[in-house]
């Protein structure tokens, strides 16, 4: 029996006042989770990551949010953004700013627009099912048609110190209306060395001819577990540009799913994972081309130091009839230590005949010739390595049009590089 069983029962008891359809949804989701159980090494899509901690360790769950401590936030790109700040699951209205043009409803006591929330999970993802059973924080964000936001929306989900090892199941649902343009930064930040588990679900729907710039930045605490599930539905002629930056956490798994629901839509997805010590990051992306004339480009990079592990599984599925699809997928990985390991597994599955698809994967160490070249110009071995790794990682950051976010990411990359070269 899972620890979650009794936690779920007491959660339901505490949620008695909720609407019956929400309770039914939760029960169904929990039943699905119970049937699936946590992934083990026999699960093809999950086999390179050890999830046993979620069975061995009890993560406390409180139907009421944690007490929030005084917090310090010092993020430069915060200043020119609409900040949506959560501290340990509690929405901080006073610290946040919501643009007048959008509908924003944080979860807590009420669950607005229930019908749009209660989407049955079709993927066999036990973490997603757990999120459906337990979610009690997050928001619903509705950006109406023909809206252009003048500043990015910056979601900060902050986890601070705590006396117990806890779990949280935030859910973020974002709808971008027709012809609208927005930039969203989804930022998970840990300011504690304590262990905790964030099991996040993000659902994004991009309407016809709408454009979304999205950055998901994972900077959890060093003992944190972060499981994420993100789905994007792309309407006709829509554009998605998304970057996944992974720096923090002890164990990280992210399932990404992109579905093309209309013609002529484009998605550019990039990822950069920087790991050291015994960190483990696992990215699993599925791109489903179910409409003709759409294009998807993926570039995922891992830089692995010390004993860290990385997993990348990418599947591009081109359904029958999705002619003129253009899909590219590239996984490039740099090992900085003999003990670091990378599992990369790009896959293409094509059922249409008039398509352009390519994929590739490389994993290697720092190029000895490049290192010799730089050192022969007077750069120390350490500096030469740092510049080469930075150059490798920078390819993912290039093209970031938000200058203050780019500056922040470059600084984070620099401090990460300094951190690993110290050891």
């Amino acid at each position, binding site marked *: 029996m899972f620890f979650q069983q009794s936690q779920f029962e007491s959660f339901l008891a505490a949620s008695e006042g909720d609407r019956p359809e929400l309770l039914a949804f939760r029960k169904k989701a929990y039943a699905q989770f119970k049937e699936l159980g946590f992934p083990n090494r026999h699960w093809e899509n999950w086999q390179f990551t050890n999830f046993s901690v979620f069975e061995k360790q009890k993560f406390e769950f409180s139907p009421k949010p944690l007490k929030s401590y005084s917090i310090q936030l010092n993020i430069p790109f915060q200043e020119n953004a609409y900040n949506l700040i959560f501290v340990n699951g509690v929405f901080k209205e006073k610290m946040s700013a919501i643009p007048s043009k959008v509908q924003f409803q944080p979860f807590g006591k009420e669950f607005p627009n229930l019908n749009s929330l209660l989407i049955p999970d079709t993927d066999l993802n036990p973490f997603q099912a757990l999120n459906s059973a337990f979610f009690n924080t997050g928001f619903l964000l509705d950006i109406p048609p023909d809206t252009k936001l003048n500043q990015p929306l910056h979601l900060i989900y902050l986890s601070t110190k705590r006396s117990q090892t806890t779990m949280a199941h935030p859910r973020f649902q974002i709808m971008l209306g027709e012809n609208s343009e927005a930039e969203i930064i989804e930022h998970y930040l840990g300011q504690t060395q304590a262990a905790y588990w964030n099991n996040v679900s993000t659902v994004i729907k991009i309407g016809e001819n709408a454009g979304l710039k999205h950055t998901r930045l994972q900077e959890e605490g060093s003992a944190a577990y972060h499981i994420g599930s993100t789905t994007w539905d792309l309407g006709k002629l829509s554009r998605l540009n998304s970057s996944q930056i992974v720096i923090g956490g002890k164990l990280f798994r992210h399932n990404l799913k992109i579905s093309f629901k209309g013609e002529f839509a484009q998605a550019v997805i990039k990822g950069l994972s920087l790991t050291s010590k015994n960190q483990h990051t696992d990215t699993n992306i599925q791109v489903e081309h179910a409409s003709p004339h759409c294009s998807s480009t993926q570039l995922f990079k891992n830089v692995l130091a010390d004993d860290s592990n990385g997993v990348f599984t990418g599947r591009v599925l081109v359904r029958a009839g999705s002619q003129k699809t253009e899909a590219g997928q590239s996984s490039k990985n740099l090992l900085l230590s003999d003990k670091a390991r990378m599992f990369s597994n790009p896959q293409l599955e094509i059922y249409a005949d008039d398509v352009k698809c390519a994929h590739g994967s490389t994993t290697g160490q720092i190029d000895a010739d*490049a290192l*010799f070249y730089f*050192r*022969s*110009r*007077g*750069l120390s*071995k350490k500096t030469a390595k740092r510049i*080469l790794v*930075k150059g490798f990682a920078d390819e993912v950051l290039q093209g970031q049009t938000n200058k203050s976010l780019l500056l922040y990411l470059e600084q984070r990359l620099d401090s990460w590089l300094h951190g690993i070269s110290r050891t």
Partner: protein
Amino acid sequence: MLDIKNLHVTVEGKHILKGINLRVKAGELHAIMGRNGSGKSTLANIITGREDYKITKGKILYKGFDLSKLSIEKRALEGIFMSFQYPVVIPGVNNTYFLKSALNAKLKYLDQPEINAFDFMHLIKEKLKLVEMDESYLSRGVNDGFSGGEKKRNEILQMLTLEPSLAILDETDSGLDIDALKIIAKGVNNFRSKDRAFLAITHYKRLLDYMVPDYIHVLIDGKIVHTGGKELADELEEKGYGWLEKKI
């Protein structure tokens, strides 16, 4: 400047240099000629400090110091520069950033203040003119998308920026058309001074028409078998290397 004594070098266990003796004084330009596989590039790389090349006998003295204890970067900081036969392509690293980092490493080593971005741009634009390179090179990755000639000009640009005492030009003429060759020779000739020494490695006389050497050495099977003045280039052009092989 450079004093090589009975130098023996192995590369991956293969005996390549078999007793090189060579003295290069400040102010001189020496050319090393020879067929493919004679050990010319090995000589350039061992002076630069390539780590997988092993000295089994003899030594290299630079400004009177034994080089064998010095790391690659220390040699560079002490003023040794090699223009690579095959400059390495490094996409994600910006040319300007690389050059500025290298120059600042040198200034720091010399206990001089680092150069700021403004002064560096001013300096680099002056140097670019000398090798007739476009300013757009500066925003590109290191040798990324460069033609053969552009890569070699970039090497010379680096040399002019870092101002070494000893420059080794490893087949800097290979893959160049005559215009690019003239530009490079001009860059080198303007850089020659009584305080600097050059070692030019080449297959062809062509380079030496534009970059006139004080001495020419012929390398055959890891040994210098013949040394002459600049007129030796004409003799080699006419007779090839066969007559020297017979002399061994």
